[in-house]
């Protein structure tokens, strides 16, 4: 686990932009810029994510066609000016389906991660601040859940509650809780023993103030990094479940299920599988790259 260093507020350098702006010596400034700034990979990732976000928010702006409109005269048509990414087995425009599928992918990634981080944080903080018994109980529970691979846990939840988008989000979210709970607990323990918490306690702040004002904000920092990467993995898990036919119902465009159906037509239409696959890959790589870069900054080193 790379996200376990005991980061404390005292050790944290000011953000690069502030630093760069305040340093007077030109030579220093450039050094600082290249050491602390974001690389090109960050900006490419940001652009990809921006495009996906735009597609998720306003798909009709980007989609050239109706994603559900079938055209039996153009079944499995190769990429052309009319259909830039070609068409699927029912003559629907693949590019438009990818654009409209973005919302589901983002919702899945962000939604599942939000559930995992939200519940995980609560569990982690309670364990970190609670007494030995409570901590032991929560962490043993976490250990047991961690014994199952995340995807298996998600499949188990779906087997019980059934498929569908909402259930897939819940399943992946719940499956992600133990990781975050464990991380937050570690951070909470570290922050709890730090000087400034001691100081806060020393000046007589009440327990609640200390938790909400000092412990939580500082313990959550590395989680932001992990969560960014988590969005990518959650999207991938969601696409995987849809690939298995457990996600959305047809004909709703969904990247994983598009990929799944496309494999039957691999011999006839390479574009059908290639573009949904690229979309998933781009989203996952972008969030991962972004997460790594953020991590590097939080930890004070370049990625």
């Amino acid at each position, binding site marked *: 686990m790379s996200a376990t260093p005991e980061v404390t507020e005292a050790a944290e350098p000011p953000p690069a932009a502030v630093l760069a702006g305040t340093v007077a010596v030109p030579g220093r400034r450039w050094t600082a810029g290249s050491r602390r700034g974001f690389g090109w990979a960050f900006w490419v990732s940001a652009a990809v994510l921006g495009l996906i976000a735009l597609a998720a928010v306003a798909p009709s702006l980007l989609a050239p066609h109706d994603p559900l409109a079938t055209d039996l005269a153009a079944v499995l048509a190769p990429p052309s000016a009319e259909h830039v990414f070609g068409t699927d087995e029912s003559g629907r425009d693949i590019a438009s389906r990818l654009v409209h599928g973005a919302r589901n992918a983002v919702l899945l990634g962000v939604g599942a991660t939000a559930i995992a981080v939200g519940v995980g944080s609560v569990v982690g903080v309670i364990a970190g601040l609670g007494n030995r018994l409570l901590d032991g109980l929560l962490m043993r529970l976490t250990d047991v859940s961690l014994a199952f691979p995340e995807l298996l846990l998600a499949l188990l939840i779906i087997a019980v509650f059934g*498929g569908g988008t909402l259930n897939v989000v819940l399943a992946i979210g719940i499956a992600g809780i133990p990781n975050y709970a464990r991380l937050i607990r570690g951070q909470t323990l570290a922050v709890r023993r730090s000087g400034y918490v001691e100081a806060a306690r020393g000046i007589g702040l009440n327990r609640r103030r200390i938790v909400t004002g000092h412990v939580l904000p500082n313990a959550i920092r590395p989680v932001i990094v992990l969560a960014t990467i988590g969005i990518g993995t959650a999207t991938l898990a969601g696409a995987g479940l849809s690939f298995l*036919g457990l996600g*959305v*119902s047809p*004909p709703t465009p969904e990247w994983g299920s598009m990929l799944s159906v496309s494999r*039957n*037509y691999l*011999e006839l239409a390479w574009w059908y599988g290639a573009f949904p696959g690229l979309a998933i890959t781009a989203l996952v790589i972008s969030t991962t790259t972004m997460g790594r870069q953020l991590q590097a900054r939080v930890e004070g080193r370049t990625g």
Partner: protein
Amino acid sequence: MAALKRAGGVLAGLAIVAAAAACGGSTTPASEQSADAQPVSGGVLKVALNAWEPTKLDPQSQGNSNDPLIFRPIFDTLFWQTEDGELEGLLAESADISDDGLTYTFHLRDGVTFHDGAEWTAEGLKLNFEHALDPATQAVLAGSYLAPYQSSEVIDDLTLEVTLSEPYSAFLSVLAQGYLGIISPQQLAEAPETVAENPIGSGPFRFVSWTKGEKIVYERYDDYDWAPESGATHTGPAYLDGLEINFIAEDSVRYNALVAGDVDLIDWTPPQNAQSVRDSENLEFVKFDRPGHPYALWLNESNPPLDDVLVRKGVFAALDREAIVETVSFGEWEVADGFLVPSTPAYVENTNAEFAYDVDQANEFLDEAGWTERDAEGYRVRDGRRLSLYFPTLGDVTQANQIVELAQSQLKAVGVEVVIEVLSDDQQQQIVADGGHHLSAGIWTTNTADVLFIKYHSSEITTPERRGTNQTFTADAELDQLISQGRSTTDTEERAGLYAQAQERLTEIVPSIPLYYRPSLVSYHDYVHDIAFDRAYGNLWFYNTWKDATG
């Protein structure tokens, strides 16, 4: 890139040398072999089917589309269906039917010996009927096919007299289907429960092993000497040393297993790959009709708005079935033109003509039904309710789902919404059994027009006590009477007349939308010869098949 190309050239060169070496000497290349090449014995034929594997190897207990193919090698039936639809004796030589249609006297073939050495006698046939109807067998299909069976009496060693509770015209025909395979009398008498894991019959191949989820292995039965005359190219034992039937769920994997030579033959060729098989130099492709009811969308009449025949007619006319079937099957399936497959007895041509794709006609039907208003999304509304149809389905039935997706898109044009929901097997089955759905899809393969009774008779509607086969919840008195009479009439011509009327009646009440015939789509390597089919079900039959030396 250049380097890659060169490497490719070298590889191709090597392949040619290897092929020449393999062919070197005695045998001629497969492509030059004439059609009348002499069959040779030997070799194991490796076959791949889709995922529909039996749950038990007791043929009478099973009911899936692959089962007749899987059980035919091990089990013979009483009769064999000939090319012109007649029945020829197999384990029975003949049967006499009494004038009232209630008593059947079976005269059995002499000299048949089962794989375990058991002799074939009238007592053995009696045991088989009783086994199929024993609740412990859980014979979903064979049980219902034999439902009118009441009792039987052994007249002598090779004569059995069977009494039915009601006249049943389909009786002898269903006895030709692989589900009614005859099991060793000795096994049934001593340990009927062992049939599930170790099936013993009298067929041209005997069972060797079954690796669940993977394959069933067979070997030739050397004493076999009672092949059906009209179907067989030879007498005596089969040509192949053995058979290996593999279950490969994934379409693309099954197809590639054939192309790569891992198997010699596949059924369920993915329609999208059929053209590549035809174009291939060393692969062959053949289709064979399955009789019965075409693949259809079942319209649940018990669930409004489908209780209104005008809505059902509107939905039917709104569908461009030609285009749907052409698209989904890449032109490999034929559009159904009626409620029976043409190879079924009593089939009447072109009964669906009045439901040709006609959007104006569809709109008229739906307007007439009172669904005249439209909501913001363009769907029809009546009394504040949207005209919406619910299709609960499974995730892995790609083609069924694609059909309904295309139907959804076409029905939208006439203001009818279709809601598709992917569910787990249990959830979907429960909803369909309870009638909570509007649309379901399926096919029923059998060699008699009695399939109309199975699919549309009101007595076949599922009740709390009994799971029925009528998925449309049709309960039409006139239709009920026609198909009941068709079932009980022994006169062939009279029966054909009744079934013609029944098919006519179906076009008036429209309980389903027949879509296409689903033939066996078989692809195989050209070193495999004499592919044959059992017409009672349209399944592959391996008795004639042989592999030449290049395989």
